[in-house]
């Protein structure tokens, strides 16, 4: 099974996983230009995430270790999410009461999304969890798990 690990903290990894340290990535923000849809299909105007894109669409599972900010994903993780738009087509279809962009690739990885944050109440946790599920449902991940870091088996460390 091919794994990709995206981490904002710790040194969690698994043997043979392709690992991306958010701290080491200098991700430019999406500027909403839609170049990746209507000028160079599938290719972002920025060229700082090509290894990530290749690893993500080739993986069976993506494991995120996210350090939250104010009970939500960090702005850097949000930048990564925003920049995943080239992995999908501009064309849309409609189902389940909502809109979906069509997939560009034949498959997308299952998701394990671990977070390091202690929510003070259930509603804030639900908002965060709803958000992650919504994003990766839109991103065509067949299985999505959102878990506190204490539920991680931690895999192997580097």
């Amino acid at each position, binding site marked *: 099974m091919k794994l990709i690990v995206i981490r904002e903290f710790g040194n969690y990894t698994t043997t043979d996983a392709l690992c991306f340290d958010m701290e080491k990535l200098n991700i430019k*923000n*999406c*500027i*909403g230009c839609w170049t990746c*849809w*209507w*000028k*160079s*299909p*599938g*290719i972002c105007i920025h060229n700082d995430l*090509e290894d990530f*894109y*290749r690893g*993500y*669409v*080739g993986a069976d599972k993506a494991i995120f270790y996210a350090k939250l*900010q*104010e*009970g*939500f994903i960090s*702005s*850097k993780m*949000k*930048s990564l*999410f*925003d920049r*995943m*738009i080239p*992995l999908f*087509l*501009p*064309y*849309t*279809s*409609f*189902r389940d*009461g*909502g*809109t979906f962009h069509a997939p*560009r*690739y*034949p498959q997308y990885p299952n998701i394990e999304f671990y977070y390091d944050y202690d929510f003070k109440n259930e*509603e*804030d946790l639900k*908002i*965060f969890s*709803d*958000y992650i599920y*919504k*994003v990766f449902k*839109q991103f065509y991940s067949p299985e999505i798990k959102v878990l506190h870091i204490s539920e991680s088996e931690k895999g192997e460390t580097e």
Partner: protein
Amino acid sequence: MKTIILNGSPKGNVENCGSYILARAFANGMSTPCEVFSIAKENRESLMEAIRNADNVIVITPNYIHSIPAGTLDFLYALPPSKGNQTIGFIIQAGYPESSESAIICRYLERFAKRLGYTVLGAIAKGECAGLAIVPERFKKLQNDFSEFGALFEQTGRFDESFISKFAKPVCLTKFQTRMLNASVPISNYLGWNKILKTNNCYEKRFDMPYLEKN
């Protein structure tokens, strides 16, 4: 009462920016001057000072991946706590027809602003704004609504409930709307994306998978 608007689009205050178009329409409805600042393009400390000096802060921003753009989120994380009597409101404009695309981030922003001590005017989701930045002339009615919404806000100090529910429709697509929209996909693709792709000489590449490694 001093009101400022923060435009949360990475494009900034330019003519092809949907959030700026709506921000300007809202401000135009008010009789007292209301400045529209760009979160992406202006000095952050100056913006924070403008927020500290305002009674009412209104953030108008596009939806990016069911939330707000990364740079706008980063800015809001640095928002100063309310000095005690400030209000804040959020307007999220999105491309999808259904406003539920923005429902989760609206819930989040309301709670986030309350934690900072602001009186929250509301977090409003407006769908069907996909073409706003491209063909704004087709959105005159929406711009007029936003001007009226701005005028009512100036009079009452609140977001008008009838406009909130009007902007939110449809929250989710009905089965009938889903059928109609799916039936219209071929023609909307022909007149929309495909036309643009052909103009840019990349129609043949529209389904390219540049990052798929061949085994």
